[in-house]
C-alpha cells in the first residue's frame, strides 16, 4: 500500500496532462460553439485556423528571438501572442467578408455554410503549409519545467516522479483567465447580452435594433482570438505541426457537441470530459494499482482499457453516443 506514490503516478500521467489538454480543447470548443451560436453552422475550418494562429506565433517568436528579446523563464511566445491574435482575427474577418457574407446575403441554407467552411479549411490548411511548410517547428524556450520529475523525486523522496511543465501551467492559467473574461463579457456587458439575444432569437434581436453585421463581426473577433490562443498553446505545449491541428478537429467537435453545441459552459465541460476520457481510457493503470495493492496481488497485465492507438476513437465514440442519446448535449445546447 503506497498511496502517495500511486497519487503521484496518477497525477503525472492522467491529471496534469488531462488538465492541460482539456484546457486546449475547451478553448478550441469555445470558438466552435460561439460561431455555431451566432452563425448557426459548424465551422470545419477551426482546426486549421488554429494552425494559422500557431504559425503566426512561431514567426513572431523567431523574430523576437533574432532580436534577442526574451521573457527569461517564460516562453518568448507570450510576447508574440497578441500579434498572433490580431493576425488570426484579421484572417477570420477577411474570410467572413470575402466568403461567408455572400452566403448570408443570398440566405444560403445552413448546410451550404458547413460545406463552405470545409472549403475554407482546405484553403487555410494549404496556405499554412505553403508558408511555413509541413514539418514540425520548435519555438518553445525559457524554463521547460516548473517542477521536473527528477526534482520532484528528490524533493519528496517518492519513487514516482511528477512533472509539471511551464507550458502546462501557462495553458491552464490562460484558459481559466480567458474563460472567466468570456463569461463576464457574455453575461455582464451590454454587447455580450446583445450577442446572446441574437443567438437566442435572431428576428426578435433585429426588431430590438441590434445590428446583425456588428454581432457577427464581434463573434468572429472573439472566436478568432480564442482560436489563436488555443492554437499557440497547443503548439507550445506539444509541438507545432500544421497537420496535427486538422487531427485536433475531431476531439474539439466532440467536446463542443458533448457539452451542447452553442453553449459556452458546455464547451468547457465537454473539453475537460473528452480530454480525461481519452487519457483515462487509454492509460495503463498497472503502476498506480500496484502501488495501492499488497505485493501478493500485484497486477501482471497493463490494466489498460483501450490501446493508445485508439485514442481518437474515444472522442468519436463519445460523439456518436451523445448524438444518439442526447443530441442537445449535456448542457442543453441546440440539437446538432
Amino acid at each position, binding site marked *: 500500500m503506497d498511496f502517495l506514490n500511486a497519487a503521484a*503516478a496518477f497525477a*503525472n*500521467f*492522467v491529471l496534469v*496532462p488531462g488538465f492541460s*489538454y482539456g484546457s486546449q480543447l475547451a478553448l478550441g470548443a469555445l470558438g466552435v460553439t460561439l460561431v455555431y451560436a451566432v452563425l448557426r453552422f459548424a465551422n470545419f475550418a477551426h482546426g486549421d485556423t488554429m494552425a494559422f494562429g500557431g504559425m503566426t506565433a512561431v514567426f513572431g517568436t523567431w523574430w523576437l528571438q533574432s532580436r534577442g528579446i526574451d521573457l527569461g523563464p517564460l516562453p518568448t511566445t507570450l510576447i508574440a501572442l497578441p500579434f498572433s491574435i490580431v493576425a488570426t482575427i484579421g484572417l477570420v474577418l477577411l474570410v467572413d467578408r470575402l466568403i461567408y457574407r455572400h452566403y448570408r446575403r443570398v440566405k444560403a441554407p445552413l448546410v451550404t455554410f458547413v460545406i463552405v467552411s470545409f472549403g475554407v479549411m482546405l484553403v487555410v490548411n494549404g496556405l499554412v503549409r505553403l508558408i511555413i511548410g509541413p*514539418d*514540425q517547428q*520548435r519555438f518553445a524556450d525559457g524554463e*521547460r519545467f516548473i517542477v*521536473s*520529475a*527528477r526534482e*520532484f*523525486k528528490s524533493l519528496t523522496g517518492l519513487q514516482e*516522479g*511528477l*512533472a509539471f*511543465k511551464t507550458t502546462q501551467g501557462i495553458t491552464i492559467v490562460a484558459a481559466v483567465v480567458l474563460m472567466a473574461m468570456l463569461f463576464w463579457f457574455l453575461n455582464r456587458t451590454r454587447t455580450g447580452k446583445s450577442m446572446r439575444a441574437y443567438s437566442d432569437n435572431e428576428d426578435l434581436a433585429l426588431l430590438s435594433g441590434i445590428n446583425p453585421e456588428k454581432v457577427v463581426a464581434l463573434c468572429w473577433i472573439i472566436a478568432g482570438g480564442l482560436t489563436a490562443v488555443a492554437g499557440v498553446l*497547443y503548439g507550445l505545449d*506539444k*509541438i507545432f*505541426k500544421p*497537420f*496535427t491541428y486538422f*487531427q*485536433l478537429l475531431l476531439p474539439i467537435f466532440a467536446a463542443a457537441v458533448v457539452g451542447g453545441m452553442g453553449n459556452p459552459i458546455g464547451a468547457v465541460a465537454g473539453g475537460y470530459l473528452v480530454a480525461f476520457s*481519452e*487519457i483515462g481510457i*487509454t*492509460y*495503463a*493503470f*498497472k*503502476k*498506480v494499482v500496484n502501488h495501492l495493492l499488497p505485493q501478493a496481488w500485484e497486477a501482471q497485465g*497493463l*490494466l*489498460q482499457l483501450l*490501446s*493508445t*492507438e485508439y*485514442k481518437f476513437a474515444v472522442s468519436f465514440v463519445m460523439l456518436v453516443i451523445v448524438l444518439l442519446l442526447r443530441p442537445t448535449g449535456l448542457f442543453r445546447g441546440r440539437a446538432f
Partner: protein
Amino acid sequence: MKRIVTAFAALFGLATGAQAQDEVKLGVLLGFTGPIESLTPQMAWGAEYAAREATESGAFMGGSSVAVVRGDSTCIDSAVATAAAERLVTSDKVSGIVGADCSGVTGAVLQNVARPNGIVMISPSATSPALSTAEDDGLFFRTAPSDARQGQVMSSILMDRGVETVALTYTNNDYGKGLADSFAAAFAEDGGTVTVSLSHEDGKGDYSAEVGALASAGGDALVVAGYIDQGGLGVIQASLDAGAFETFVLPDGMIGPSIIENIGGDLEGSFGQMPGSDSMAGMVLVDAAAADGIDGTTIYVAESYDAAALIILAMQAAGSHMSEDYKSKIFDVANAPGEPILPGELGKALEILAAGGEVDYVGASDVELIGSGEAAGKFQEVEVANGEFVTIGYR
C-alpha cells in the same frame, strides 16, 4: 518494301546475335521516382560503375561487355515495379537484376517476376526480415543486412551493458514492426525481458498517452524503433518530460545529428547502433564517384556496387550468364576461401576466376553472405556523449 523488311530482319538478327555473344545485360531496378528518389541515382551509379569496371578490364567472360538497363521500381508501387521488372526480363533480356530497393516492391518483384522467369536478383537496400524466409528458389540475395540482424546486435549491446528489462515502442509500419519483432525475439532468447511492445503512429502532436502506457510497464531503458524526425522524437521528448525513462536505445532510423539538436543534454548516455563498417575500402568508391560528379557518400551506394559486382563475378565463376547456372556461385564468390577482393579490383578477380581460382569478395561494404543469402552486416555501436554520437565499436 520487301528489301526494307529483309534489311531490318538482318539488322535485328545481327543485333541480337551480337548481344548473345559478347554483351551481357544487367537490370538495375530502383525507385528513380518516389520517396527515395534522392538516393537512387547514386545507387544506380554504383551498379553501373561495377559494370563499367568489368567491361574495361576485358577479362569478363572472354572479353564480353556488361551493359546496364535501368527500370523504375517507384519504391512503393508494387504493380509498377512488377511491370518494370517484367520489361527488363522479357523485352530487354537482362541476365540478372540489381534491385529492387524498398522491401515491399522487392518482395513483389521476387514473387511475380524473378521466380517465374528464373532470374537472379540482388537487392542493395531491402532490409525487411520477412525477405529472409520468402520462397526464392535460390534466386534472391541482398547486400544489405536484414533488420533481424540489427535486432540481434541491439540485443547483444543491451546484454553487454547489463540492461535486462526494456520497454519497446515502434513506428507502425513494416520497418518498425519487423525490427521490433526481431529485437524482441533476440532479446528474449538472450534472457532479457521486454515489458511491453507498443506501436506509435508518426505525425501526431502528442505522445504522452503512449509514454504513459510505456512508463506503466516500466523497464531500465526504452527502445525506440522509429524515425528521427517523426514519432520517435516525440516519444523520447514526452518520456523525458514525464520523467518516464532516462536511457534510450536508438536503432538506425533514430541516429543523426538532428535528434541531439532537438532533445539536448538529456540524451546523454543513450546508445544504439547503425549499419557501418570500419573498412576504408568504401573510400575508393567515393573517390571514383566524385570523379564522375556523383556524391558517393549517400547510403547504399556501396551495397549497389557490391550487388552488381557479385552478379558479374558469379557469372564469371560459372562461365555462364544464365541465372540457373550462376545462382549457386554467388555464395562462393562472396565468402571465404579465396583471394580478398576490394573495390577497383574486379579485373583481378575476374582473371583469378578465369584461371579457376577462388575469390572472397569483400567489396565496398565488407560483404559476407549468411543465411538465405543476405549480408551479415556490420554495425557501428554508438553512444551519445558530450552532445554527439561517439563510436564505441563495431559488431
